[in-house]
């Protein structure tokens, strides 16, 4: 093609190229915007997306009352500042207290940060501990500062089996061949107040002819003496230590 003709064509085409460039950029940014909206819409129906479970507060503070449920992502940081993934505004919790990551086949691994400590199912962890040996599983209890949290993992996650913490409860034997004389007495059976004979399952109880109605207390019906029962063992944690309000805590309140 002659050079002057090519020059005219090329000069004309530059507007076409500029138009196409602008069109491509416009479509790219509108695509980004649409994708962002679609993702928000999709995640609205999947509130647990990206989460592996939740922490239930067993012992907290005024800002984090007991029973509060905190979603737990696959990896992140636990601390009291709002930038953390799991925020625990309780005394004794550092701004960034412990890093955590969920590892398939093991559980939630905790990595306490420098000079921090936490207790997982009665095992104390520091930044020097071999923390990978103590992953948190479903039902594990975590104590950070004065807060006590229990981990609930979603079903279907692959974790290492480990018996989680549960209070000791003596089993009641019911098999007829095992009589109480052969067994060791339960601690409460050593009580000086009362000795209860376990019920014999072979002994058939008489069926009452009619159901007894509960009667109100009166001088005709004095209250029946109830033998003392030992209280059922509960989760007992060290009492919360009074703590001075530090600069960090004040900063949290200000936020």
């Amino acid at each position: 093609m002659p050079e002057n003709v090519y020059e005219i064509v090329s000069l004309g085409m530059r507007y076409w190229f500029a138009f196409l460039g602008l069109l491509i950029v416009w479509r790219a940014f509108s695509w980004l915007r649409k994708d962002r909206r679609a993702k928000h819409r999709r995640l609205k129906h999947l509130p647990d997306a990206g989460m592996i479970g939740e922490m239930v507060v067993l012992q907290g503070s005024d800002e984090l009352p007991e029973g509060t449920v905190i979603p737990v992502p696959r990896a992140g940081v636990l601390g009291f500042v709002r930038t953390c993934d799991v925020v625990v505004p309780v005394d004794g919790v550092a701004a960034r207290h412990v890093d955590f990551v969920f590892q398939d086949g093991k559980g939630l691994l905790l990595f306490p940060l420098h000079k921090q400590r936490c207790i997982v199912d009665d095992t104390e962890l520091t930044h020097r501990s071999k923390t990978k040996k103590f992953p948190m599983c479903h039902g594990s209890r975590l104590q950070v500062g004065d807060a006590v949290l229990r981990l609930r993992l979603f079903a279907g996650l692959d974790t290492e089996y480990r018996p989680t913490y549960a209070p000791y409860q003596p089993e009641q034997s019911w098999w007829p061949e095992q009589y109480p004389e052969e067994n060791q007495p339960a601690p409460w059976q050593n009580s000086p107040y009362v000795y209860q004979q376990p019920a014999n399952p072979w002994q058939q109880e008489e069926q009452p002819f009619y159901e007894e109605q509960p009667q109100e207390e009166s001088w005709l019906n004095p209250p029946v003496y109830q033998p003392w029962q030992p209280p059922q063992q509960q989760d007992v944690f060290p009492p919360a230590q009074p703590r001075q309000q530090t600069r960090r805590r004040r900063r949290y309140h200000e936020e």
Partner: protein
Amino acid sequence: MRNDQQERTFRRDPGKLLSSAVMLFYFSAFLLLWLKDFAWQAAALAVAVPAMIWLGVNFLPHLFPADKLLLSLTNFLCALGVLVLYATNPAYAYQQAVYYGVGLVAMVVCIYLVRIIRHWRIPVYLLMPVSLALLALPLIIGRETNGAKNWFYVGSLSVQPSEIVKLSLLLIISHFMSRRKFLPWLIFAVGCLGLLMLQKDLGTALMYYGVTLMLYYASSSNLLLTGIGLAGGAGAAVLGYKMFAHVKRRVAIWQNPWSDYDNAGYQLVQGLMAIASGGLFGVGLGLGSPRTIPVYHTDFIFAVICEQFGVIFGLCVLLMYVAIIWRGATTAMAARTSFHGLLAMGATLMIGLQTFVIIGGVIKLIPLTGVTMPFVSYGGTSLVSSMCLIGLLQGVASLNEDDLNEDTRLAMLGSEEGMR
């Protein structure tokens, strides 16, 4: 026959118009270049480049849940390099087209590696000595070019190992940072920076340093140590300024290129003049005199783009990089594991920082350093490593999509169980 839902989805697919516009752009551009001298190569490229883009954008998503937007923009930028090189020096364009094909294959390999390998411990420990050895090779068998000794030659093939090592740098740093191990990645990064300083490849050293520091901040949020690292970097920059004569010269030229416009400042002055002569819409494709700019095909290709297509188109190219960075950051934020998040963020930062360093240098925003413009500049190693970075990003994006689909499936299963 499609039903109504499928019909709506088909019509609303935002990728259709974008990829069509990209293909139309290259078809018309190469057709215009064909009109210039009726060379069959231009006609072949007018068919081959849109076909390659169509293949890259529409075929790859059938293999895995790929991000079509990233694919479209990356393909556009790669093909832009081929187009501009063809308009200035066709010999470079043919080689670049071959590297573009190789880059596409490398990208697919990287996507599959990210998707398949779940435990990176052994590969990372293998990569560390190999990368350091590769980076040390130019010091032994390399040749000095433009003040830096960062190339070595295998036959007629020239290799820049720092472009390959940046991939392993990202993998190693992401792996160790996600495992909260401080020392291994620090030793590796310091070793890489030391070798780059010995090669006097300060542009690449700046990128390595910036990406490492930003990734450290992203993984730890430790402002104090990041600040100390930043101060150390500033000290090293001052030291580099005092030690290397060519750095002093570049800073002086950056401050006033017109003081020595026919010698040391010639390149920068020619680049600025090319951008200015292009105006808003450019001088026209195949016209102008882009070859007067020294190294127009690598470092100063942005000046050539602005001259041929105009400043408006140059801004569009910049916005495309912004879109890629935006998409990369979104992908990193949505990643489910810290390793994948850091990997995606590192790849995004690497592309973003490289683009900023070279375009900032060309438009005299910062002192010029010798790095290539990602995807566009001539250079096989650079193009393939940039495509590999996009491959890493795509791999993480496809894993995110898989996880989200799995969440949706579980949620639907849960709701069905609840209904029962």
